[in-house]
C-alpha cells in the first residue's frame, strides 16, 4: 500500500533535516551573541520548522503556536549570551525552551500553575546545556531513539506523551488514566529505561 511505501521516505527526510541542522551551530551561536541581523534569520531557517512542529503538537492551535514560536526565539535571542556555543547543544536548548513555553501555556489555561507545577524557567537555563553533547540531535541518535520509542507498549508510549507533550506529573497521569499511581510509575520508569538504554548503546558504539 502507498502509505507504507512512503513511510521510509518520510523518516529519511526527517533524519536528513536533523542532520543538516547540526552543521555549524557553534558559528551560529557566535553570530547570535554578536546580534548579527542575519543570525536570527539563520536560526529561524534552521530551527523554525522544528520548534513550530513541536509547539503545534502540544497546543494544537496554529495561532497560539505562532505566538509561542516567537516567544521561544525571543527568549533564545535574549539569553544566548550565557549559552556556551562551543560545548552546548543549541538544538536541544531550542527544543527545551519551545516545549516549556507550550507547556506553560497549557498549564495557564488548565489552571495547573497553582497545582505545584515546577517553574520551567529554571529548567532551560543556558548553563544546563553546557555539558550536553552537541550531537544530542545527531542522525544516528535520533534514528535509534525513534526506533526504540516505536517499540514501546501503548501504555508506555501514552505516559511518555503525557509527560513530554502535556506536562503532566505522574499523579496527574494516574488521575487521567484512572490507574494506580504505582502502575503509572512503573510504566514511566520502564519506558524511560528503554529509551535511556538505547542512547547508552549508541554512545558505546
Amino acid at each position, binding site marked *: 500500500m502507498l502509505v507504507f511505501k512512503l513511510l521510509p521516505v518520510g523518516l529519511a527526510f526527517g533524519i536528513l533535516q536533523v542532520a543538516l541542522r547540526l552543521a555549524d551551530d557553534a558559528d551560529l551561536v557566535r553570530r547570535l551573541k554578536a546580534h548579527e541581523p542575519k543570525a536570527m534569520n539563520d536560526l529561524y531557517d534552521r530551527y523554525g520548522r522544528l520548534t513550530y512542529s513541536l509547539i503545534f503538537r502540544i497546543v494544537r492551535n496554529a495561532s497560539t503556536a505562532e505566538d509561542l*514560536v516567537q516567544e521561544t526565539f525571543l527568549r533564545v535571542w535574549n539569553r544566548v549570551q550565557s549559552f556556551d556555543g562551543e560545548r552546548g547543544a543549541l538544538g536541544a536548548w531550542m527544543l527545551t525552551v519551545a516545549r516549556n513555553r507550550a507547556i506553560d501555556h497549557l498549564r495557564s489555561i488548565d489552571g495547573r500553575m497553582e497545582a505545584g507545577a515546577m517553574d520551567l524557567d529554571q529548567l532551560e537555563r543556558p548553563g544546563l546545556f553546557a555539558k*550536553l553533547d552537541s550531537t544530542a540531535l545527531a542522525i544516528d541518535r535520533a534514528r535509534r531513539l525513534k526506533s526504540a520509542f516505536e517499540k514501546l507498549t501503548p501504555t508506555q508510549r501514552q505516559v511518555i506523551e503525557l509527560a513530554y507533550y502535556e506536562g503532566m506529573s505522574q499523579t496527574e497521569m494516574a488521575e487521567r488514566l484512572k490507574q494506580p499511581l504505582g502502575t503509572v510509575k512503573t510504566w514511566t520508569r520502564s519506558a524511560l529505561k528503554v529509551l535511556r538504554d538505547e542512547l547508552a548503546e549508541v554512545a558505546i558504539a
Partner: protein
Amino acid sequence: MHDLPGARMTCQELQEMFELYALGVLERDEKAEIDAHLARGCANCHQALADALALNAGVLSFAPAVAPPRRLKRRLLTSVGVHYPGWGWVWAIGAVCLLLVAAWLGVEERRRSFELADARRALLDSNSERDRLTQALQFLSDPQTVPASFGKGQTAPPRGYVFLHPQMGVLLIASNLPAAGPGKTYEMWVIPKGGTPRPAGLFQSAGMRALYILNGPVDVSMIGTVAVTLEPAAGSTTPTMPILIAAPVGS
C-alpha cells in the same frame, strides 16, 4: 554511588527521575531531593541531568513535521528589529515587469491582459496545488494515519481512499468522479459511529479526480464513515441522497 548528608535518596535511586525532573513534572518531594544533590555539586547527578536533557530533546524532536506559515518569519525578524528582505526584491522585479507589461498591454489591449490574468491564476493554482500535495504527503507518511477505501469492486466508480489523522484531519482522494455540474458542489460528511452526519467541507472534481483535505484534529476512533454527496453550490446542513461515496473507517 554518592550518598549526600541530609539526603533521603541516593544518586542511584535518583537516576531514573532526571528526565521527569528536566521536564518539570516531578513531584515536589522528589524534585527537592534532586535539587539538593545538584546544589551540593554532585557530579553524577549533574551528568545524569545532562543525559536526561539530551534524551528529552531527542524525544521532543519526534513531533510530526508541520510547516509554519510564511508570515511567522517576517513577524519574528521584525520583532528583533531585523529588516526582512524576504522575497521583496522578487516582487519589486515583478512590479517593474508588470509596469512594462502594462505599457505593452496599452498596445496589445485586452487580449494580452487576459493572457496575463490567466498566467497569474495558473501560478496561484500551481502554488496552491503544491501546498495541497505537500500536505497530502504528510498524511500518507505519518504512522498515525488511518486509511479507508471506497468504491472497490464497483463497476461504476468513484473509487479512492480516505486517510484520517488525529491531528491533521481527513484527506480524501477520489478518481472517476465527474464534475459536479453548474450550481452544484460535492460535500464531504463525517459520520460518527451511531451519530448523524456532520458537514466536513465542499470541494469540486477536476479531470474526473478530486483531492480534498479537511484540516484540524479529528477523533478517528469515533468516526464510522466518511461520505460524499452532491449538493447545491452553497452546501447543505444535511446530506441530500444518494450518497455517492461511503468509506467505512476501521473496517
